[in-house]
């Protein structure tokens, strides 16, 4: 499941930034990838649609790396489960 989440997050970021998914690792920061705030909320929208979770606004500000997003989504899914 975690791998599935990570793959999806990387795919959504890659789509948004026109990058090759292999250029993105779990340690990549959104800053390094040049993700703007509008792109970040679009990536979060894609994740919400895919995993049927609601990412609260206060979590958004704390997302720094790809790993942070994966952890956050995994947490939300387990809460739902």
């Amino acid at each position: 499941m975690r791998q599935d989440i990570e793959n999806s997050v990387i795919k959504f970021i890659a789509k948004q930034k026109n990058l090759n998914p292999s250029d993105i690792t779990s340690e990549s920061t959104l800053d390094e990838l040049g993700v703007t705030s509008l792109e970040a909320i679009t990536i979060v929208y894609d994740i919400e649609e895919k995993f049927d979770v609601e990412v609260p606004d206060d979590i958004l500000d704390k997302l720094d790396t790809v790993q942070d997003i994966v952890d956050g989504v995994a947490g939300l899914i387990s809460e739902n489960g």
Partner: protein
Amino acid sequence: MKTPVVITGVGTISALGHNVDQFWRAICNGESGIRTLTCLPLESLRVKIGAEVPAYEPYEFFSKDELHLLDRFSQFAVISAREAVADAGIMAEELTDAACIIGTGCGGRVADDESYQRLYQQGKTRGHPLTVPLVMANAAASQVSIHLGITGPVFVIASACSSSAHAVGQATAMIRSGLVDVAIAGGTDAPFTYGTLKPWEALRVMSSDTCRPFSKDRSGMVLGEGAGAVVLESLEHAKKRGAHIYAELAGCGMSADAGHITDPSSAGAARAIRAALNDASINPGDVDYVNAHGTGTKVNDVMETQALHQVFGEHAARLMVSGTKSMHGHPLGAAGALELVATALALKNGIIPPTANFTEAGEGCDLDYVPNQAREKKIKTALSNSFAFGGLNAVLAVRSIS
């Protein structure tokens, strides 16, 4: 003494093609761009025709990265503004402090429609985060400023079918006041979505045949899409940089009917025409040509003819009046800008645009409507009329530079 303002660049994308050359060639040939719509499913539409931009491939104009932030109406605005700026031969650094005033009647309807489909039809619970930046009415003006690096005053004007004439009037006033030396002004709309067309059908003003302004058998207006833009600058600024000048934007007249929300008033239209003549210090008897609002509805064409009689008296019989919506359709917020470009080119080229699809004059329509064939005639002074739903009127006066 008002600061003279001149038109030094023009840009269009419309049912008549992707640029001004195609637009003007079609007008000179009296060719109509009204066809069966291709950009949406037609089964449940009563009106299946429109003036759609032909063979439009957004990827020919924008990168993938640019496109996801551009609703169709913003794409058209940027395309027409780029052409106008290239035509004016104005350098990027001269645009930095320019103004950019873009009209729109309905904003980003494509993203709007998609959003409502997701929420109401597909039962999704989330809106898409890009919907607001795509649909907001100022998106087109903002995107033109972003794409051209314009950091001066930028805003949108929304007065339905008069939007772009008001935008040009506003830009002219800003140049005259000394606020800016250069302005990009125009308008854009892309109304071909199911959710936009159905309410237009319900107004029962749409033709399912074609647009025949001022004809006896006219059957209504035909919606269009596209954008038009002009580069305006003070005469002094244009001369200093050795710019090519199409014509002087000599005046703008505006009025509101303060009557009915959809029924137009000839008195309101006449007030705007007189105001434009006064603003430009033009004697009514000196006007050669009027690019009419000419929607092809029963009500507009009689009302507009009456207004011209009221203002011009006996001279009305000598005016050439044409309805170019018979060719580029009625693209709402883009209409005034496209018609201003047609009017400026008429002055520059000595060719009067025809009213296409003309059969025989309708009752109460007794002027020279330049039926079906463009007319070669050198002219010096012309008007372009725009009268909007809501009773908002804007008339632009254009004069050749001697």
